[in-house]
């Protein structure tokens, strides 16, 4: 290879890196970096909301990590195959429960289908017409690794490559001006789904720790600390340098911390159950109530990898999940916000149809998703996957999860799903017209 080619290569190397990572103002407050951000946004990618779609709509994503057992969440009690495959862990049909093993709660409008008895809170939302179940959601050539399948859901790509689907949504819609609090995730780490080229989520686990602990040392230290961290980009500092980026982020952190802790300090309007998902959703509800401009919130709950003795364990998980969702909805309703908040619940995969030898279930494939909100088309959508026509012992999917994302992007957030997802997917029917 000649020197000439070397240089061509290098230019390509540097250029490519430059374009891919042109995130110099990932969390820039508008008033500081507006013009620079406008220059950076790739031409032609800017979208605005579709006419008629309110700008104040909020999406709350609830991630159930570990692979929630869809078959023991939405229960096909009308099928003998279900009881044959799961003699030790099946949920009894309505009227056939015992004290130890309560029966499934029958869903109206669908024969032979119910929800787990622990989900009475969620069932109430179904009965009230503000919740839906989308059955048989998955993707082709399912991957049964937790990490890979989760990445596939996060990137909306079956090769699990690229940025997160929500991050791309922000990249496309922000007109080059990501708002610092546009995307908020609660948990130990910011989910891949929320990462774009430009947009990075505000992420914190506990609002109590989303602050500088040094201020507890002595009262006199808070003032100089604020002076240092609220200065933004000091004059004579190149705003495009790493230092400029750090100074902006420091200011963002102060502003977000103050707003979020102020919002969360108010007591909620309803009682929440004592569990971690409820704690996270309580924080989200407080932020919505306080009028933060956040459009997407992300919360998560683990423990769904039920390989052994799952009956009691899974019932407990679902009780926490259902209770948290129910309290969250009631809280939003009292606030008057239930019409502008859509909650979407997913897991990286469902579980094997047949139970294993440890009275648990192994990693599977397709599973239901759950939606809550006043604008949700209520009821059960799609057919339950066949329990006999299986793919290596696993359910076959009937709804590609990206057609669910497409519906959320297009019909809820009012953006072009094709731009965000890279191709057209037939939109699932989830949101009322």
């Amino acid at each position, binding site marked *: *290879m000649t020197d000439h*080619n*070397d*240089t061509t*290569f*290098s230019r*390509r*190397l*540097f250029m*490519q*890196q*430059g374009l891919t*990572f*042109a*995130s*110099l103002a*990932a*969390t820039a407050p508008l008033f500081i970096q507006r013009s620079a951000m406008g220059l950076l946004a790739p031409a032609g990618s800017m979208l605005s909301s579709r006419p008629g779609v309110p700008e104040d709509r909020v999406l709350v994503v609830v991630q159930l990590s570990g692979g929630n057992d869809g078959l023991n969440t939405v229960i096909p009690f009308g099928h003998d195959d279900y009881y044959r495959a799961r003699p030790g862990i099946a949920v009894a049909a309505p009227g056939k429960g015992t004290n130890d093993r309560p029966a499934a709660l029958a869903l109206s409008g669908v024969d032979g289908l119910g929800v787990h008895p622990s989900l009475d809170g969620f069932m109430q939302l179904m009965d009230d017409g503000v919740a839906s179940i989308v059955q048989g959601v998955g993707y082709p050539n399912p991957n049964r690794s937790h*990490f890979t399948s989760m*990445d596939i859901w996060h990137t909306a790509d079956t090769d699990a490559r690229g940025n997160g689907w929500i991050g791309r949504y922000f990249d496309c819609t922000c007109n080059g001006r990501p708002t610092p609090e546009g995307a908020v995730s609660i948990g*130990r*780490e*910011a989910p891949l789904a929320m990462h774009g080229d430009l947009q*990075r*989520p*505000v*992420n*914190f686990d506990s609002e109590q*720790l*989303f*602050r*500088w*602990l*040094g201020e*507890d*040392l*002595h009262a*006199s*230290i808070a*003032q*100089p*600390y604020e*002076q*240092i*961290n609220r200065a933004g980009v*000091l004059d*004579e500092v190149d705003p495009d*340098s*790493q*230092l400029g*980026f*750090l*100074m902006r*982020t*420091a200011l*963002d*952190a102060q502003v977000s911390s103050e707003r979020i802790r102020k919002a969360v300090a108010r007591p909620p309007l309803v009682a929440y159950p004592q569990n971690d998902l409820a704690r996270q959703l309580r924080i989200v509800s407080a932020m919505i109530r306080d009028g933060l401009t956040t459009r997407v919130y992300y919360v998560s709950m683990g423990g769904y990898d039920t390989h*052994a003795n799952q009956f009691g364990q899974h019932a407990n998980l679902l009780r926490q999940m259902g209770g948290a969702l129910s309290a969250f909805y009631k809280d939003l309703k009292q606030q008057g916000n239930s019409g502008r908040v859509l909650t979407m619940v997913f897991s990286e995969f469902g579980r094997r149809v047949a139970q294993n*030898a*440890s009275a648990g279930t192994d990693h599977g494939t397709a599973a239901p998703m759950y939606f809550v909100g006043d604008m949700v088309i209520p009821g059960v959508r799609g057919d339950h996957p066949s329990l006999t026509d299986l793919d290596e012992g696993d359910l076959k999917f009937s709804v590609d999860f990206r057609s669910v994302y497409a519906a959320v992007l297009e019909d809820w957030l009012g953006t072009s799903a094709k731009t965000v997802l890279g191709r057209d997917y037939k939109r699932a029917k989830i949101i009322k017209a």
Partner: protein
Amino acid sequence: MPPRILQPLNPRDFDFWKARHLLNRAGFGGTPAQVAALASMGLKDAVAYIVNYQDIGDPAVAADTFDADIMSPATAEERQEVQRARRAGDEAVLERLRMERQQRQRQDRQQMGRIQEWWLQKMIESPRPLEEKLTLFWHGHFATGYRSIEDSYHMFRQNQLFRAHATGSFRELTLGVIRDPAMIRYLNNDQNNRRAPNENLARELMELFTLGEGHDYTEDDIKQGARALTGYGFQDDAFVFRQRLHDPELKTILGRTGNWDGDDFVSIILTRPVAGEFICFKLYRYFVNDRRPAPPEAGQRFVIELAKLFREQDYQLRPVLETLFMSEHFYADANAGAVIKSPLQLIVQAVRSLLTPARSVRDLLGACDLMGQNLFQPPNVKGWEGGESWINTSSLFIRQNVLIYLLTGHSPQAMPWQTAPGDYDALHLLESLRDDQGAVDPEAAIDYLLRFNLGGAIHPQRAETLRAFITQRDGAIDNAALIALLSLITAMPEYQLS
């Protein structure tokens, strides 16, 4: 004569502050006394001291005390027992075997924790900081995650591989990597056989390890490369080449046809100049400047010339590192404070340069994980992206808070947390400033602390803030005032830069 852009720094210009820059970047910083000692060696000897670290004995090196057999494969008898139980449908035996396996997995996760602690401790204590820094570089480059392979001893062995070749031959290192059990498992090459090739290792070998994504290879090169790698597997803790799984037919890789195996595949890749540039670019981002997009024009020329040298030296790393750390470009103002510290750099540099207590290594590892750098568990096969990706609003608070923990012992774990007795003596930092009576001028102390912790160009507003703070106290620089000053300095955005 080296090309102009690679010219060494004028040795007369190698002072305390240049030595500080060298020790921060090629290592994890040092105390004022250590920096002064390095400066007194002069440029050539200082760089040689850092790079030729084999000459320095490492008292921290412990024998390999980790258990190699926790996850060792089942013996023939154990396999027979499983088969008998399966045939007989003996649920009790199967359940017992499952419990035993889970028990071993628990033990292995615990051992992984001990290996993490061992490494962080080593970074904090090693007299050969460049060895640790390069081992971390190669860990991020040839990224392998414990969660997917679930064998702590394989992770430990891979760490030893990176150490063994850290400043040696990149060719030998890469050949070691395609024979490394952890990597073979992580990228599924144990499933790569002539009948059903698995392309995972072949793809990443070109895309992430040597050439860079999309550079000078095609999908077909990946397919053919995967065939060359068939049969590269492992047994227990050792590489094995399984002849009967290997595809013996002709393959054409990057235009060259032959009955290639995995080693040939690596040799063919390394005929491409792109490989040298890709590695030198990553070294540049790690050691010199990680600014995005692209480094400034001078940086690009530097990388290209460095890559030429790398190829001329048949991919030997030591001459490349020596040239880099000697170069005027490395010490240029434009490259001062131009690398964002990784979470490990932040923590280890704080302990090593300020001489704070290391507190609980377990807590520090937890903090590192929260800041996005979990040792032995990079986020994916691409490793840690580095640079600005380390920083967001929440990681910035954690970065500031972990420094409070080091300086004062205040831990966010315990709520409400109490003030630990002052167990950190910071006064050693100011030794060089004391007058005959042992007194320290507060203004000089503030200026020195800022420069020692933040490097060269510091905005005057920072010193003003600190001066006002000290004046408002009682003007004296005692240990408590010093710790308060350090709490503020380490909370400055500038402190995240190296």
